[in-house]
């Protein structure tokens, strides 16, 4: 079993990089050393009325400095509380959680939508072959300058102010992006479109899923997704997003 750690992480710095989107670097004792691209951490609130940890994907890992970066959207009271935390404050976290992206030496296409974009950054840095990144934003861009340094970036925005007008799949099709492997993270409708596209073009595809979680380590069975085959652990057609996932082979999971 891979090691997971519960720690008091120290905030190195936090900034708002787009409206409601925050970037936070955390100094950890053990998590950064053990972490891989595509894994996530559970972030606990200080306010006792909010019990459950917030699962937030890892955006970047700095193994030399024992630090991990998370980029998250304020979606409710918990993330709102976390967004007000400042340098040198402590945050309870657990991680690294989940399986992460498989790193393969193939021409890669990374597809991210909205707050699904951040976990692709560490992945792009870790991939050794030609890397193309398609990122779909509502309107405001974030992390785009950082992605440009690690691959060819193609952008889509809803109003077309930046890049292709439309969603991220419009950018993929408009630029006729081909690849031997696709990695994707984003909202379910986007993942469905990616799955369909990959099947049509016969490209190996890996999807990072999201689901409401409680324990984050595979015990409570809150965050399951439907699987094509019977799962060895659950003995039914359910896989745990926090444990067997969050990254799955596209054909392995049924998206609803």
């Amino acid at each position, binding site marked *: *079993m891979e*090691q*997971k750690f*519960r720690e008091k992480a120290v905030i190195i710095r936090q900034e708002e990089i787009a409206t409601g989107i925050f970037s936070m670097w955390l100094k950890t004792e053990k998590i950064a050393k053990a972490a891989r691209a595509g894994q996530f951490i559970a972030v*606990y609130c200080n306010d*006792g*009325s*909010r*019990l*459950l*940890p917030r699962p937030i994907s890892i955006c970047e890992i700095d193994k030399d400095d024992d630090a991990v970066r998370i980029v998250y959207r304020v979606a409710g009271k*918990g993330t709102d509380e976390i967004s007000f935390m400042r340098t040198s404050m402590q945050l309870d976290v*657990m991680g690294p959680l989940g399986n992460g992206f498989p790193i393969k030496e193939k021409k890669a296409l990374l597809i991210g939508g909205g707050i699904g974009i951040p976990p692709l950054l560490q992945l792009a840095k870790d991939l050794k072959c030609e890397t193309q990144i398609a990122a779909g934003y509502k309107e405001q861009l974030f992390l785009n300058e950082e992605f440009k340094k690690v691959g060819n970036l193609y952008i889509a925005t809803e109003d077309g102010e930046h890049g292709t007008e439309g969603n991220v799949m419009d950018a993929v099709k408009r630029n006729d992006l081909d690849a031997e492997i696709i990695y994707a993270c984003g909202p379910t409708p986007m993942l469905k479109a990616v799955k369909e596209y990959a099947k049509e073009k016969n490209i190996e595809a890996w999807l990072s899923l999201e*689901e*409401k*979680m*409680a*324990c*984050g*380590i*595979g*015990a*409570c*069975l*809150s*965050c*399951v*997704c439907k699987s094509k085959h019977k799962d060895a*652990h*659950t*003995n*039914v*057609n*359910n896989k745990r997003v926090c*444990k067997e996932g969050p990254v799955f082979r596209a054909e392995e999971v049924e998206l609803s």
Partner: protein
Amino acid sequence: MNTKVNIAGVILNNPVMTASGTFGSGEEYSQFVNLSQLGAVVTKGVSIVPWEGNPTPRIAETYGGMINAIGLQNPGIDLFIERDIPFLTQFDSKIVVNVCGKTMEDYCEVVEKLSDMPVDLLEMNVSCPNVKEGGIAFGQNPNALEKITKEVKKFARQPIIMKLSPNVTDIAEMAKAATAGGADALSLINTLTGMKIDINRKSFAVANKTGGLSGPAIKPVAVRMVYEAANAVDIPIIGMGGIVNAEDALEFIMAGASAVAVGTGNFINPYATLNVLKGIEEYMEKNHIEDINEIIGCVR
């Protein structure tokens, strides 16, 4: 200092257990908690055949608590016996298997399959609010509760714990009914039926519409019910409902619980069970309590 407690003839090294459904079969949490240090591990409910459970979202956070409607997803008794029991027997903690079913026969078949297994106690889940058949249907009517207790007792080699639902008018009446049916111990409370509405999506926060409310928010209700049950019957009681620290656990013990279980608390902190145990020991030392049994039900 003695922290050993007796649940229907089974001696637990200490009164701290896990609450069914929050701890799997212990494997995931064993990375954080040395399971041998717990009084007992209580497994997630297991049924005669595998169950898929409910659609997602299965949980929602609420103020000081959470609502869940997992729907008793489990791998079925055969894989459980093959995989989960051998895992648990590596540890010194007692093993309590939680049993669920749709019909009386379902419960009896699982109990029978477990009769030769190295498990210490069986807990009957007759109080899950999240499945359509079985579950709570047996736990909200005193006659049905007495009847199913009698029935499973016929097949059981291990002592039987009946897990009671708080979704009843009179918990004392239910405690008496289970005792009349031959229950060896009681555990309470299961979750309170609740609902949360997502006003942005204009829909229910969990797919099952309703779910079971747990966590610190329900603790005062749970302490009151443990107190009422303890005063109604003479069999041991395992108290649970919102325990996250030793102070919470001690309230239950003083209300009449011989043991306590940590449930949602595990999600807040994977070390919660050990923190509760450590805190109980510190309290005993500070207050010169030689034996935990001195304070069980000390508030009358």
